[in-house]
């Protein structure tokens, strides 16, 4: 069985790779490359796989999941500038793709040894652009 928990956080970022020229940056990141940054209301969907416990009827205590998401994602990223305040984005371009992979890497260890397996995450930068990652 799969369950999905949704959270949101708002953050600013700029997508600019200093190893590339200005025109290469514009070609790859478009308006996301403006130097002073801009913000998004990110929405994260975290999907867990498991079987309901016969006694509690739950796969995992969602209070715990809420706390892990709070500690790993919301607290460090909400109302922050990703490039300036959230490592490794001082060195890694904070595209939605990279942010999705980073969030997976933060969350995945939290589910080790629990009855729930992290099955996949989906990060919406806007409602028209989202990235899925399942640890592949």
């Amino acid at each position, binding site marked *: 069985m799969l369950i999905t928990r949704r959270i949101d956080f708002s953050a600013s970022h700029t997508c600019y790779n200093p190893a590339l020229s200005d025109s290469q940056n514009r*070609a790859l990141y*478009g308006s996301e490359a403006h130097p002073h940054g801009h913000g998004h209301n990110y929405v994260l969907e975290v999907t867990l796989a498991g079987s309901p416990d016969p006694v509690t009827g739950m796969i995992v205590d969602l209070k715990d999941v809420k706390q892990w998401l709070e500690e790993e994602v919301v607290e460090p990223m909400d109302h922050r500038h990703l490039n300036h305040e959230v490592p490794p984005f001082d060195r890694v371009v904070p595209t939605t793709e990279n942010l999705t*992979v980073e969030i997976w890497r933060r969350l995945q260890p939290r589910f080790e040894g629990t009855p729930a397996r992290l099955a996949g995450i989906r990060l919406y930068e806007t409602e028209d652009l989202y990235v899925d990652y399942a640890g592949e």
Partner: protein
Amino acid sequence: MWTMPENEEPGRPVVRVTRRYRFSASHRLHAPELSAERNREVYGKCNNPYGHGHDYVMDVTLRGPLDARLGRLVSVDQLDQFVRCTIVDAFDRRNLNLDVPEFATLVPTTENLALVAAHRLAAAWPLAFPGSPALPEKVRIWETPRNIFQVFVANSEPFRVMDESARRHAAPTKESR
């Protein structure tokens, strides 16, 4: 913590990027092989002679290994331009039956619309993104908020515009859309 040393080849995570597009179009569902009465039975209101329209929503999903140093599967601007040229400009504010060549011989159900969109993406992709490790994986079209059709691009390959059996196969169920 995840670090990305400059000179080390990172393991490449496989990600999916989905971008949403919208277009508005009219269509009429009518299979020329069927009698007028049978067309009315099969397609219901969708068979009304002058057609009707929808605000379609289309999600295009790409899949591929991510170069974390670039952080982008493909440029979103370039993807938008590609999908606009390949699909949206051809469908938006058009009559699908009359304005989209594939539907001269194919009933423009949203099943077939998704197949045509996937087929167009697959055919034009290598020209627009030569050598890109990212590939279009699936197309999902909302005809209305209640009717949603998804096709995997790999499965759109056998699709042939003139294929009679594909046309019959794509005929929708009796219930009106």
